[in-house]
């Protein structure tokens, strides 16, 4: 990047700082998709560290029965903020941040369709995040009744009613997510418009990288699924501030209605988080196996199926609510059905590796761990779809294990892999492979130590969201092991941060295509110039760089 700071007619004392101020100013006013993408990911990683800290305290409190390290009030705020932060301030910004950066590059475009809307999306997210965390300060003291939100990340009614949540903590949760939601919908609209209208010449929909396809599906899901959350939150606002009765059971309102509306958003949301992970892995595995993805059309079809089916399974979070046997059965059916397109993707990835020449650079290590951990996550998902079994496992630590296998074991692992893979493109430097290996193995051990025993604790009757537990229930041992996984993860993340800091200054120069990959982003400089491509690319297959490197055997005729 070589944008020169404009000369500032300033007093002498500012001349030295003129460089820094000007640089900061560039970043604050930018509408460049690459810079916004970086800002999203950096902010997301910062929140990751904070939410990780919250989890660390939770695990310290639960390491043994009857601990009093934190009060129940503080503990309830911790798990609420941990969940809310990880979903809305880590997962969403990082996956959309990557899409922001990569989609235009992968389709040969200059930027997103609406650059200013893009900037709006980022600042809406950041403002929402700061608003949420302001609750630690602003809630207590001002009104004396409440601090950070403590109602759980899905904030069931009527616990969120004024009667049961006095003060403003719930309102911070409500408003911050409402604001962030608008930003996310805006970004999704941007991605859809970009993908549908700004592909370079020759790139039909059937020639887009799988990453772009999956982000298109994710954006479609967001446009459909986020507004219901906003609607429910507006209803909650009306209840709390204007005396409305949407969720007021004393006036005929319905507590279950909140659950339906929330999960109608909430389930697609977890696919909105996870599918980008699939997208990243669908780029990484072929490159490091040295083979084209096996079954591109089916992977696209499966992704579209997931996008559609994800809107039909929401009440599988509510099997214990008493919806009745017919509805329980219907949602069991749809949930089991969605396992199919999700599961066969694993087969496509493994089939890609089969017959390849696999190179285990750090991105591939994370991708391989993802394969096993996502397999577990999917299978525990199938277990949870068997409704009577669900009646024992829902709201227990088994579910906590399941969704952490999805969101950490699968999503975070793919995000780490993606960072190692695309960091050279973004910065022009390679991350250290040695530190990367330490990061990988420590995190793998720590993650599994923490979350595998939780399956068992759940089956032994341990419910979720409890700040302590009796000593005679047989849960102590498993909780201790879970807590022992924390130092490994902390060490791993520290090494990761050090890796980034060191590599930014002293990493090996990457060149435009350090991994010998095949999609368009690798055809331009690292980092790319502001306009992305010298001349607009023209493509003739799904792997334009493969065609260039293998003119004797281009992809086109095989597709």
């Amino acid at each position, binding site marked *: 990047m070589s944008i020169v700071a404009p000369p500032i007619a300033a007093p002498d004392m500012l001349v030295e700082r003129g460089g820094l101020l000007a640089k900061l100013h560039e970043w604050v006013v930018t509408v460049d998709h690459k810079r916004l993408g970086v800002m999203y990911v950096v902010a997301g990683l910062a929140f990751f560290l904070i939410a990780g800290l919250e989890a660390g305290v939770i695990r310290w409190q639960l390491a043994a029965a009857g601990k009093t390290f934190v009060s129940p009030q503080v503990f309830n705020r911790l798990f609420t903020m941990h969940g809310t932060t990880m979903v809305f301030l880590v997962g969403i910004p990082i996956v959309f941040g990557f899409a922001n950066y990569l989609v235009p590059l992968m389709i040969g475009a200059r930027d997103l369709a609406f650059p200013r809307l893009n900037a709006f999306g980022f600042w809406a997210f950041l403002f929402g995040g700061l608003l949420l965390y302001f609750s630690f300060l602003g809630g207590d003291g001002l009104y004396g009744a409440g601090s950070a939100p403590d109602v759980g990340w899905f904030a069931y009614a009527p616990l969120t009613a004024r009667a049961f949540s006095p003060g403003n903590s719930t309102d911070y949760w409500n408003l911050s997510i409402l604001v962030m939601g608008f930003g996310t919908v805006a970004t999704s609209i941007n991605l859809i418009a970009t993908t549908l209208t700004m592909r370079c010449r020759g790139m039909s929909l059937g020639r887009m990288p799988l990453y772009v396809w999956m982000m298109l599906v994710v954006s479609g899901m967001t446009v459909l699924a986020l507004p219901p959350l906003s609607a429910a939150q507006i209803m909650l606002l009306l209840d709390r501030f204007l005396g409305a009765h949407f969720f007021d059971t004393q006036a005929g309102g319905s507590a279950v209605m909140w659950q339906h509306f929330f999960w109608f958003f909430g389930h697609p949301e977890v696919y909105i988080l996870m599918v980008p992970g699939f997208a990243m892995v669908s780029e990484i595995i072929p490159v490091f196996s040295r083979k084209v993805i096996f079954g591109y059309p089916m992977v696209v079809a499966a992704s579209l199926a997931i996008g559609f089916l994800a809107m039909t399974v929401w009440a599988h979070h509510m099997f214990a609510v008493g919806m009745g046997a017919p509805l329980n059965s219907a949602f069991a059916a749809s949930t089991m059905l969605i396992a199919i397109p999700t599961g066969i993707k694993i087969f496509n990835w493994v089939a890609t590796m089969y017959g390849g020449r696999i190179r285990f650079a750090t991105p591939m290590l994370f991708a391989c761990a993802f394969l096993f951990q996502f397999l577990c996550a999917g299978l525990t998902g199938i277990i949870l779809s068997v409704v009577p079994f669900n009646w024992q496992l*829902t709201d227990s630590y088994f579910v906590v294990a399941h969704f952490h296998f999805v969101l950490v074991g699968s999503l975070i692992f793919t995000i780490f892999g993606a960072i190692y893979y695309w960091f050279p493109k973004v910065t022009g430097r390679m991350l250290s492979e040695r530190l990367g290996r330490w990061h990988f193995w420590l995190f793998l051990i720590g993650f599994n130590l923490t979350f595998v025993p939780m399956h068992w604790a759940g089956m032994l009757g341990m419910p979720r969201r409890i700040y302590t537990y009796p000593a005679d229930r047989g849960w102590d041992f498993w909780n201790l092991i879970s807590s022992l996984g924390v130092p490994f993860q902390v060490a791993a993340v520290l090494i990761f941060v050090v890796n980034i800091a060191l590599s930014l200054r002293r990493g090996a120069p990457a060149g435009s295509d350090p991994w010998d990959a095949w999609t368009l982003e690798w055809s331009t400089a690292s980092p790319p110039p502001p306009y992305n491509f010298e001349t607009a690319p023209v493509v003739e297959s799904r792997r334009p760089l493969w065609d260039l490197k293998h003119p004797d055997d281009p992809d086109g005729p095989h597709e």
Partner: protein
Amino acid sequence: MRRVLAVVPTPSMFAPVSTPAFAIREVSFLVLAIVTVIFVIVAGLTVYAIVRYRRRPGDDAREPPQVYGSTQIELAWTVVPFLIVIVLFLTTARYIFAVERHAAPPEALEVTVVGNQWWWEIRYPSLGIVTANELHVPVSDPARPTPTFITLQSADVVHSFWIPQLAGKMDVIPGQRNRTWVEPLTPGTYVGQCAEFCGVQHAGMLLTVTVHSKDDFARWVAAQQAVAADVPAARAGRDVFTSVACISCHTVRGTPANGVFGPDLTHLMSRATLGAGVAPNTPENLRAWVNDPASLKPGALMPAMKLSKNQLDQLVAYLGTLR
């Protein structure tokens, strides 16, 4: 009768004692078997691919053969899971209907459980009994079943009623009546707790279920149906009770106290714990609770009564007579 909380078994869903819990364990074995087989196959293939096709030091820089797909293989690995899903779904539906639509036989016991923040009110409408936090039911004989059917209501927010060894959980939702049932086949005491986050002391909303033999259950019912004991030596304490606002929240049958916001205390001493399981029911704990409930259960909704030492002594002595 005063009991000590015996060492209770771990509330494992794999140690069922009641018909619905047995059914759940049955279906869980099938599911776990299917899932294990899938895991072994898929993980096995993945390990094989990783090991067999890793790049070796002697490899040249040539790219391996590019395989773009295979319609037959992809069809197969879509159809087979689909068949598995059909089997799984049909099994699941069968168990759903079997458990949910199980009709109550005429000898079934009806109980109403009302979830409160953070304790359980338990009513036996046909027996005229109201108690709290400890559910007592008769054992059921497979030849002539006497299950207990439970109607679940909430006085405030959403809770969830869960005793893993007896049944799957069922949410307790304000404005809605849910039904669940247990059919315990072995006497004993089993534990559970609230399973839906309901506020500050969600973790302190524990539950025990004591399954009695038929005779023992009849004895327990008779004891619970009796009105509160009137011990002359404790009358001073009873006067404290009636004068210091206790009666606005608590009921003691046989006295003017008929408040409904807190647990029925008529037979308080027959319960093994205080505060829905947070502390054993000992005189020291009872005294600490009455003096300041938050000392045993931070966030509990019962206020500290700010009694003088004398009042406290008399009151605790009175409560100690409510067997």
